[in-house]
């Protein structure tokens, strides 16, 4: 039985006050809050078994290694990867993407084509631009429609035998649009292209099954789904990851080292140079356990109700325009009111204890497309309530009255 008030007790931060008002946290697409259960896993690690992993002979190292590898197995099961070594721990989505982009630098040649979508976060644009500069490959962009969805006809026209890689986010961070990734993967594969899906915004709401999707690479960050910052994952098919050059050199990722030649360790260690974020990795697993304890589908159902309620509430406000009106979207509302600058409304909401994001959301091309400087983005999580949406609506009304 889903009980939001009981769940909120897992999140001490939700009962704090901001500027004298009870906090209304609606910036979940930027980072989600961390439940006690996950924080306790982190402190337990440091209090009881903090040790370096994979090489110590002693008990603590063994316990830490077991916990870390158990977390890898939890992530593997969650995303239904075929093997645990297909899950690479990284510092987060951005590092995961850079790892792949760096690996492809030696695999691409001049004239190869890369396809990205117009809905991407800067972290899924810039590494590929850098890769194109290095290799002479061409970056092409799948255009978007006014309602904030991908133009799939244009996508098919852009795909051709020169297309080596396609990168699309599962869910747009700025608009909440859920992209038709299955169709994108299938069509790209028909042309022999590989596909990387950025799952950072999808993971808290949608359980991706990487084998069913037949996706080549899937990346996400723990902090979007109730885990800590600074840790994430790169899923890649074994054969592809084996063929990809190592990303960073260092300890942990080697098999043998002599000054003449180093041979690399097998997956996943080949991509995990240096001492990793051990507590973070273990907590990532704990965060998935926490989310799965509630049930991702239960979460998605409740968030859909929040989204419907908030959309209706906000649309009652004169002059409020919502950007991103895809039929399939997560609980994100990106909006502006009249010609009022998003920072102005965001600042006043902050005075009322309401946390939203304002700006271009690291997706400037989308803002350029709509010819706006940015939006206000309210993004909801399973621990938000209908009362909080009422406060958001009232807050926006008050801010608009002050600013007009």
């Amino acid at each position, binding site marked *: 039985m889903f009980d939001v008030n009981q769940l909120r007790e897992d999140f001490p931060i939700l009962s704090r006050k901001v500027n004298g008002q009870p906090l209304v946290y609606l910036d979940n697409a930027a980072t989600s809050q961390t439940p006690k259960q996950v924080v306790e896993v982190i402190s337990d690690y440091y209090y009881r078994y903090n040790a370096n992993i994979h090489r110590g002979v002693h008990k603590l190292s063994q316990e830490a290694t077991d916990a870390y590898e158990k977390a890898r197995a939890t992530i593997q099961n969650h995303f239904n990867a075929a093997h645990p070594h297909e899950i690479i721990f990284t510092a987060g989505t951005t590092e995961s993407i850079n790892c792949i982009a760096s690996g492809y630098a030696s695999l691409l040649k001049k004239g190869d084509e890369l396809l990205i979508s117009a809905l991407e976060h800067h972290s899924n644009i810039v590494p590929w631009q850098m890769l194109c500069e290095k290799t002479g490959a061409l970056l092409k962009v799948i255009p978007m429609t006014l309602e904030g969805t991908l133009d799939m006809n244009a996508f098919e026209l852009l795909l051709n035998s020169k297309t080596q890689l396609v990168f699309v986010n599962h869910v747009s961070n700025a608009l909440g649009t859920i992209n038709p990734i299955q169709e994108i993967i299938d069509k790209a594969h028909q042309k022999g292209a590989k596909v990387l899906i950025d799952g950072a915004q999808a993971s808290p709401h949608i359980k991706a099954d990487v084998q069913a999707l037949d996706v080549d690479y899937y990346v996400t960050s723990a902090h979007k789904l109730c885990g800590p910052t600074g840790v994430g994952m790169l899923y890649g098919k074994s054969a592809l990851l084996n063929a990809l050059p190592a990303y960073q050199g260092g300890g942990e990722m080697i098999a043998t080292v002599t000054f003449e030649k180093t041979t690399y360790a097998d997956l996943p260690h080949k991509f995990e140079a240096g001492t990793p974020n051990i507590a973070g990795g273990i907590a990532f697993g704990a965060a998935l356990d926490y989310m799965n304890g509630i049930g991702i589908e239960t979460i998605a159902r409740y968030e859909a109700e929040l989204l419907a309620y908030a959309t209706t509430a906000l649309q009652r406000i004169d002059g409020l325009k919502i950007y991103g009106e895809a039929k399939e979207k997560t609980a994100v509302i990106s909006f502006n009111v009249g010609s009022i*600058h998003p*920072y*102005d409304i965001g*600042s006043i909401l902050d*005075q*009322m204890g309401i946390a939203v994001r304002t700006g271009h959301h690291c997706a400037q091309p989308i803002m350029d497309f709509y010819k706006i*400087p940015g939006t206000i983005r309210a993004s909801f999580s399973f621990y938000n309530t209908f009362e909080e949406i009422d406060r958001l609506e009232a807050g926006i009304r008050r801010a608009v009255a*002050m*600013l007009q």
Partner: protein
Amino acid sequence: MKTIGTIQEEIVEEFSLFEDWMQRYEYMIDLGKSLPLIAEEYKTDSHIIKGCQSKVWVHAELEEDKLNFTADSDAIITKGIIAILIRAFSNQHPKDILAADTDFIDKIGLKEHLSPTRANGLVSMIKQIKMYAVAFQTQLN
């Protein structure tokens, strides 16, 4: 003519009269409406202050030995912030602007009530005003 220090004291006193930050924000919005607006021809990239997330343009002109500032922004609260600064520093001699303290900003408590990006923008605005003062002081010498 009032000194920069006197004007700053007045501003600090005005802000202390309000009970909460919502009222101070309302006041800043009002101040923004009285901002001496920059001429459209100066709303160019060379007049944009870097480090602000909303757009802010500032222009300075010397009248006899006094420096006058005009400005604009696409965000209303930002206009209020720049209006406070212009009230403190406009119609003053460049050397006085250069010598002036800016701790009245801390006394108002403005920085801590701005988002980190806006607080950075505020620092950039002060820096720009001081830069204009340096440039015109050199011209006067």
